[in-house]
């Protein structure tokens, strides 16, 4: 039962990641269009896209958010496993469990306080004033959702650890 739910949840995370891939392409195209329009002076077209920096920033943030739970499923959030690999497998496994519990608690705390932050921003009507003027809560609201998704994935991650071999995982260790 748990495996079936986990599989379906994994598909949801893959769907979000695919949306992130698409946004990456969109971000690239927006910046390229801005550079070309600014430098080529094509008649009938605007001289650059004034909003391109801000939209790119927002897209970058959304890309990071959309990819984070999928990366956790893939074991691609890097870590330092030098100690875990040196310890007896069972001890390393216990430390993995403890790490997962701590990480899940972090996700719940972040989900709660980012929701609170979004709500307060909505109530106070705070604005982000740059080229575009947008309500601040627009940029804050993805955060609680993503941390809820991450904490749910932490549960599935722990389930995989508990039902798997009693040793350390082999997750990614570098971004280079």
């Amino acid at each position, binding site marked *: 039962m748990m495996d079936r739910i986990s599989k379906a949840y994994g598909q949801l995370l893959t769907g979000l*990641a695919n949306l*992130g*891939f698409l946004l*990456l392409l969109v*971000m*690239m*195209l927006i*910046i*390229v269009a*801005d*550079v070309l329009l600014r430098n080529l002076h094509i008649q009938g077209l605007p001289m650059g896209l004034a909003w391109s*920096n801000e939209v790119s*920033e*927002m897209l*970058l*943030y959304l*890309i*990071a958010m959309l*990819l*984070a739970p*999928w*990366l*956790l499923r893939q074991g*691609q*959030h*890097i*870590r*330092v496993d*030098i*100690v*875990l690999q040196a310890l007896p497998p069972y001890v*390393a496994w216990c*430390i*993995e469990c*403890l*790490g997962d519990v*701590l*990480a899940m608690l*972090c*996700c719940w*705390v*972040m989900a709660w*306080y*980012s929701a*609170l*932050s*979004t709500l*307060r*921003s909505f109530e106070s009507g705070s604005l982000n004033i740059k080229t575009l003027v947008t309500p601040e809560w627009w*940029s*804050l609201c993805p*955060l609680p959702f993503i941390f809820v998704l991450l904490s749910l994935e932490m549960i599935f991650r722990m389930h995989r650890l508990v039902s798997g071999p009693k040793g*350390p*995982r082999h*997750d*990614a*260790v*570098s*971004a*280079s």
Partner: protein
Amino acid sequence: MMMSSWQMASTLMLGGSMVLLFMGMPVAFTFIGINIVGAFLYMGGEPGLVQLARSSVNSVMSFSLTPIPLFVLMGEILFHTGLALKVIEGIERLVSKVPGRLAVVAVVAGTIFSAISGSTIATTAMLGSLMVPVMLARGYAPTLATGPIMAIGAVDMLIPPSALTVLLGSLSGISISKLLIGGVLPGVLLSIAFVCWIVLSVKLNPALAPEDDEPTVFKGWDRFSYLFKYVIPTLSIFALVVGALALGWATPTECAALGAFGTILLACLYASLSMEAVYKALKGTASISGMILFIILGATTFAQILSFSGASTGLVQFITGQELSPGVIVMGMMAILIVLGIFVDQVSMMMITLPIFMPIVQSLQIDPIWFGVMFLICMQLGLLLPPHGLLIMTMRGVAPSSIKMGEIFLAVIPYVLMSLVLLFAVFSWPIIATWLPALLG
């Protein structure tokens, strides 16, 4: 003896993050966890935690970080469309009658990939899986087959475009453009040193490489055709990115977008761009850059808490109050980075050290570009240092099992020494790092 408040704060923040890191918690969650504790203790309890959420969003919503995924995408397109294979073939046709020819080809091709790719692992894995089996089959010694590939993979971090250089610039406040340009000369010097070392070592010990390893000698136009068809057009992307950056025509973000777009366009022209290749490239890009960006979520807050708690100021005053010369302090910082590089990854190295190192750099009025380039060389060294250097592990993963781990360790030693010599050279003659950025103005 009672600890002062800044000592408590630094022990909690820096010591706590090290404990969680070595427990194997993902780096991003380590910093989020420490930030939660730090924000609660030093930023006024619950309001601090609400502010933490705001700061997290602001950490990532930064235009200066946009080049990270775009630089990675450039390399991924190059590797997944098969363009990289054509470049290797072009270099192989060109390099002829040189001792240790295929090792030289690996270094030259690696330098060209460094100029397009923002990922050291991708470069090492690509060259390692393609060239090591061929070199071994032709009678190259395992040390000569693996060493140059690991070494040139690490140089990828120095030569722009480099995602980690952008991250270093963004987290440290050092000019990203100048840092990218500052890495060019040290990177090229290392590549030249590697080629010289390969030729010299084969001359001194001919048993390292076969005397004649060219199954087909290309002559006339055949020899140069791939150079004009594939190598020069690929290098033109580097010229576009670095040229626009150096001439101030575009920001690093705009250069990165143009570079990524140019690489896709080039792959289109060679009819090698498929939906599958694009998807694989985007997936590879997402894996590397998505994870970096999520770690950055905690970066600003980590530095803010260190600052609010007085830990940054306390540590900086403690270090600068030792009456040591700036040179000795910089040497100490580099030694810390090299030791850290043996144990932790490059992003964690930056997250842990920059909030302390940068205030010291500013207070001692040290040239940030010079410091930044040396920081990059230390991170590059960390990739090669036994026993856990990441590129050593990457090579172990792609090299045939007949190659022993001891041979891989032995293979990398001369290149580690050359990188240390370069670090010392940049330390002694800062102009190596600052000359090109100075031309930017």
